[in-house]
Structures are given as structure tokens and as C-alpha cells.
């Protein structure tokens, strides 16, 4: 197999892997807001949040079933959603910051 062909085959394999599991969805925390504010993911998806602000933020479930610690600038938090539903979360330090993950 030529090097070009190998690269092409790998690319296809990676693309297929992406399709099968979807890339890890990422939520940015920036300017005191979660972006995107509404995220739709399949069951079993792990979502990763990253804080881009200088201020600390948390990712905290409205029912407090899960929470990150205080995320500093550049720090991330991951949570896997194992059941379908609409999950609202907020920043426990700045509770006007809210967003939703819809799991289908």
C-alpha cells in the first residue's frame, strides 16, 4: 500500500469513527455564558466544557446530581449523559448562567 493510500484509508477510518461516536461535543464558557447554550447529543455522549474566562465557573446540574469543581481559566470538565432527557445546568457561582443539554 502506498503512503498516500494509507493516509487516505486512515482518514476514512477516522471519519467513520467520528460518524459512529460523534466527536466529543465541546461547550465553551466565555464572557459569563455557555456556548452553545443548547446542545443536542445522542445517549452515551460525553460532553466537555472548558472555561475561557479569567473568572471561575462551574458546570452544575440544576438538581445538583453532578457538578464540576470551580474551573479556572483553561480548565475542563467532562460529563457523560447516559439517559435521554433535557438537562439544564448552571454556574453555581453565577447562577444567571444557564444552558441545556438535550440527550436523545
Amino acid at each position, binding site marked *: 500500500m502506498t503512503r498516500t493510500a494509507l493516509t487516505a484509508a486512515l482518514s476514512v477510518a477516522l471519519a467513520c469513527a467520528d460518524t459512529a461516536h460523534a466527536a466529543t461535543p465541546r461547550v465553551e464558557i466565555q*464572557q*459569563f455564558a455557555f456556548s452553545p447554550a443548547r446542545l443536542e447529543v445522542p445517549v452515551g455522549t460525553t460532553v466537555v466544557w472548558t472555561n475561557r*474566562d*479569567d*473568572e*471561575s465557573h*462551574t458546570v*452544575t446540574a*440544576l438538581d*445538583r446530581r453532578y*457538578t464540576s*469543581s*470551580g474551573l*479556572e*481559566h483553561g480548565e475542563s470538565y467532562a460529563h457523560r449523559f447516559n439517559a435521554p432527557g433535557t438537562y*439544564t445546568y*448552571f454556574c*453555581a*457561582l*453565577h*447562577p*444567571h448562567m*444557564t444552558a441545556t443539554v438535550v440527550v436523545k
Partner: protein
Amino acid sequence: MQRRAFMQCLAWGGTALVWAARGGVLSASALGEADAAAADFTFAQISDTHVGFSGEANRDALGTLRDSIDGINALDQRPAFLLHTGDLSHAQKAGAFDTLAESLKAVKTERIFYVPGEHDVALDGGKDYLARYGAGTYEGRGYQSFDYGGVHFVGLVNVLSYTPGVGGALGDEQLAWVRRDLAAQPSSTPIVVFSHVPLWAVYPAWGWTTADGEQVIGMLRRFGSVTALNGHIHQVLQKVEGTITFHSARSTAFPQPAPGAAPNPGPMKVEATQLRRLLGVREVRYTEGTGPLAIVERPLG
């Protein structure tokens, strides 16, 4: 006219703020300007120590805390006690409460009273904070009152309500307790009320307000001298409303922008030479029968 008691506040040049009141009106003064006359007693306020903070706004928040403590210990008159108005820790970082307790052992004072900030309770609903600091407060809930030298002190908790749509609030149970607590005091008693988030609406867009704070303010209007002390906004700010004076204190860890001066609140990066001027503690001096509480702000630099 009923007997009036007066407090004098004195501010010092560290990161703590010193409070003095006269005739019910608090005033801040720079170091060296304060009335040097001995007060009946003084106390110091320290706030927003944010132990565990290591952001760009101050890479050595423990160092500026140490300097603040040194400032308190250098006061001419030893403060009877210290009030910590919350955000002891930075987002409950592991070991932060222990580190703070260790640091504050160096303060030369008889006792330290605390109220929590949202950083102390947001992650676990206040469980760890109340286990450590709830003893001696009303039913272990974190709020409390005590009397010292003829002055009635009330410490309130307005950060256990941080949920979407609410922000800082006291809640009905605490309001009922405050009403009962104040009912026992004659209007001539000087009152000092302290909380983390300001009781008045400093800047609601940034959460710098207590949703039901106006109810407490209403209960305080009959008193001849009321001093309301808070932290949370990391800057000195004063407001006089009748016989009630409101004072926001500096942080010992990092400054925040003036209300509306930036898109958002949060740690404010300033020139290294400026930082120490924006951090500090407060001294409050009380002298019965001489005038309002005297408040002395003590920046670090």
C-alpha cells in the same frame, strides 16, 4: 432624645479596612487622617481572601493575605475581634479552609466571626462551611448575632440561594429570625449588620444585590445608627441612606472592576504597582457618645 451611641471607624494602610462611626454616620478616611483618639473598642473587617486563587490578577494571594494580617497586627489599638465577610476560599479549593485557618492564627485578636460567600458554599450547599463555622450560629445555619461594648452585631447569610433566577437572598426563615432578633433591641442601640453580598442593590446586573435585602433594611430604619458591612465586590464603596450607612470592603486577593466598567465582573488585572492599593482590610472604631462609627480603610500599598 434617646441616648445615642457612636462608633468611630478607622481605616489603615494595609489590605484590611478599619471602621469607625460617629453619630451613626460612617466615614472612610485614608491612613493617617483618622482620629487618633482611643476608641472604646475597635474591630477589623477582612473579606474575600479567596484562598486557592492563583489567577493572573494576583499570583500571590496568600502573600497579600499575610500582608493584610500584618497590617491588622500593626494597628495602634488591638481590634477586639475580626469580621470575615465571606469568600474565605476560592471555589472551595481543596485545603483552602484549613490554609485560611492556619493563616488567621497569626491575627492578634480575641475572636473571628465569619459569614460565608458564594465561593464557600456553591459546590456543596454549605455543608463543609457550616461544619467548620456553623458552631455558635443560630441552629448551625451560619447566621448569628452578638453584643459587644453596647453595639449589636448581626451576621447574615445571603449566598445559600444561588440558583438560576435568584442569586443572593436571605430567605424567609432568616428574615423571620432577623425580625425576632432586632425586636429585642431598643432603637438607641447601634447596629452593625454584616454579610457577604451587599444588602442593597449595588449593581444587580452583576449579581451585586440581595433579592430580599430591602426587607432587612426596612427593619433597620428605626435605629439611630446602623452600619452595614459587606464584601463580594472587592472594592470600597459607600452609601448613606438615612441613619444607615453601607460599606463594601476590599478583597485581600484581587480587585474587581467598578460596577459596569467592564463587560463582566471578575478578577481585574492591574499594573503590579497598583495592585496593593486595591487590596486591603478595614478598621472600625467605636467611641460611645462621640459621633458616628469611624471607618478606616487600610490598603496594602
